[in-house]
């Protein structure tokens, strides 16, 4: 075990996969000579050369489609989209093509493609550079969507994504890149579609993913120390396929659930989780499910406005406070 950053974990997984399989190559804007906007790919062009680390011009639809076409012939491209906000330019190739080709043509041509991209706000990048659009992709049959919150899961899930034979949207988060965590040095994988109980508890379940799962874990630990409140945290890790069993089992135990997400509340991941829980664990719920999400505004630039719009630990603690009977006493 070694303590490394989320950024390093991604970098190491990319390097391992490039070494493991010659069909794997990287593609994206500024990933080579510039070494990546967020330096995930630093040093890889030098090590693997321009054939395996391909700088693309600015044309998201073009190069995402190109990666999809390369995957049709059996290569295993890993595409970096500089931030998730730019992925909208490639929606046609992702949703109408990558997600459809295996099904629409009767199972003749798998698409082993990974699209890595960071989402998230809080960096004063304002409305067009701070979004959380994972629900767009989680909605689509034919895609897989993963959103790890720790360096260990980032490494294990990236390996699984590259080795999967389907298009995988690999969601990162700008505010997670410098977060450190213990990472096993072996060639382990984390299965896609498997959530994880990152902290056991008995009073309430907080269900989250990506950066908010890390925030939820901090809050849960703090509350346990301060108030003897026992919060269980479920880190979804994958949004599609969604691990119903783990979230339902947790709620059956705690009887209360909060979904904590950085995206907008309406039609969000939280709405899907809440619906799933009322369908599959209705009799076990002692209180309505709470959704804690960001406010429904395009993210403003001003630090104070941005802070007011984004959700975080404070909002989660308020929700826990309202929901848990122990706190009311």
């Amino acid at each position, binding site marked *: 075990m070694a303590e490394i950053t989320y950024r390093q974990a991604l970098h190491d997984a990319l390097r391992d996969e490039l070494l493991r399989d010659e069909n794997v190559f990287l593609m994206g804007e500024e990933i080579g000579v510039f070494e990546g906007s967020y330096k995930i790919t630093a040093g890889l062009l030098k090590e693997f050369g321009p054939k395996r680390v391909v700088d693309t011009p600015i044309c998201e*639809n073009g190069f995402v489609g190109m990666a999809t*076409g390369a995957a049709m012939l059996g290569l295993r491209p890993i595409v970096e989209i500089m931030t998730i906000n730019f992925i909208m330019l490639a929606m046609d190739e992702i949703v109408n093509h990558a997600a459809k080709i*295996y099904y629409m*043509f009767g*199972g003749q041509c798998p698409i082993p493609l990974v699209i890595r991209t960071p989402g998230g706000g809080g960096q004063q990048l304002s409305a067009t550079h701070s979004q959380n659009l994972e629900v767009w992709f989680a909605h689509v049959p034919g895609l897989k969507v993963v959103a790890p919150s720790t360096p260990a899961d980032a490494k294990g899930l990236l390996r699984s994504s590259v080795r999967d034979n389907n298009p995988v949207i690999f969601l990162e988060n700008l505010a997670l890149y410098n977060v450190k965590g213990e990472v096993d040095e072996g060639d382990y994988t984390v299965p896609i579609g498997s959530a994880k109980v990152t902290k056991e508890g008995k009073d309430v379940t907080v269900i989250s993913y990506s950066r908010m799962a890390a925030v939820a874990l901090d809050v849960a630990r703090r509350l346990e120390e301060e108030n003897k409140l026992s919060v269980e945290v479920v880190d979804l890790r994958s949004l599609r396929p969604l691990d119903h069993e783990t979230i339902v089992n947790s709620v059956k135990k705690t009887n209360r659930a909060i979904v904590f997400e950085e995206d907008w509340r309406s039609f969000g991941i939280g709405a899907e989780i809440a619906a799933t829980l009322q369908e599959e664990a209705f009799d076990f719920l002692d209180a309505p499910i709470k959704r804690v999400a960001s406010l429904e505004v395009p993210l403003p630039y001003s630090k104070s406005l941005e802070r007011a719009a984004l959700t975080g630990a404070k909002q989660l603690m308020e929700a826990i406070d309202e929901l848990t009977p122990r706190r009311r006493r």
Partner: protein
Amino acid sequence: MDAQQQAQPDTQNVSSERKQTVTALPKGEDRDTVLNYYYQMVLIRHFEEKAGEMYAKARIGGYCHLNLGEEATVVGFCAGLEPSDYVYTNYREHGYAIGRGISADVVMAELFGKETGTSHGRGGSMHLFDVERHFMGGYAIVGGQLPLATGAAFAIAYRNSSEVVACQMGDGTTNTGAFHESLNLSKIYRLPIIYFVVNNQYGMGLRFDKGSAVSELYRKACAYDMRSERVDGNDVLAVRDAVRAAAKIAREKHEPTLIEAVSYRFRGHSVVDPDRYRDKEEVKQGREHDPIPAFAARLKKAGLLDDNGIREIEERVQRDVEAAVNFAEESSEPAIDGLFDFIYAPETSDTSGTPVKTDTPNTSGTVKGAEKKGEE
């Protein structure tokens, strides 16, 4: 074979009258080969007419776009390629599928939505596919196939393999972002690809020169310093030769080419389009340049075909098309319990962690358990 050296069809007004004289067949054409082109053109003509008929009888659903009037373009395109080359097309692709050697039976079965169809009834008219024949799909989003085809060419270059990708599209596609992004990408990475624009002069109801600032569509390639040419889409041999020459350059030099084949759509955009926006006189003129009798006249002039021969081919095609309809009619609907098949691909040995040598072309793309069914 530069654009400038090519004999150009009328570049000012492609729908203007052409000479009605019969052009002699070039020397050295193989008899069986050219007769097979003629057979394929007639087959596509009858297949498409039958598809329109079956649509009217509600045997075919959804949208249905026909290659009527474009038979010389379709057959010439396919004839210019090798069987190992990869083909991507748009949604007006029945003829291309047949031209790639997919049986008319299986194509008709897909139109009927049957399990025996090219895509097991999951795709329909606009989404034919056959991985074994490297027919990499009909695509129904205008321009969607261009980045994919560019990526297939990228994979070929990555493996230093010798196939070529040929990507068909309509005239309206040349106005999309995907077109321009793809041409640029193919040029900067030096990819073995042919972009093949079928200028049938209408993007649905919009005349091509109303939708494009440049009405000589092949000239759009100059923005990417790409070789390009315009060819008479009613001349099967001219189309074949242009594709063959572009394929040679793609194969040997990894240089992309844009070809514009000027053709004419005999009917509306799709089967249900009553075609009210086109001038009747213009349509009449367009149909006068029917590539099929024109090619028959050339073959007759060359002494390769007579009226008997024409009748025999007609009869053979009638039988083929009837057989295709019967095959489609008699085939089973896909089983409902297969509704969720093919959403996600299973694991393959490819993911086991063994590095795959780049000089071993692994281009089939097939996975275990998902083999093509029902084509025998």
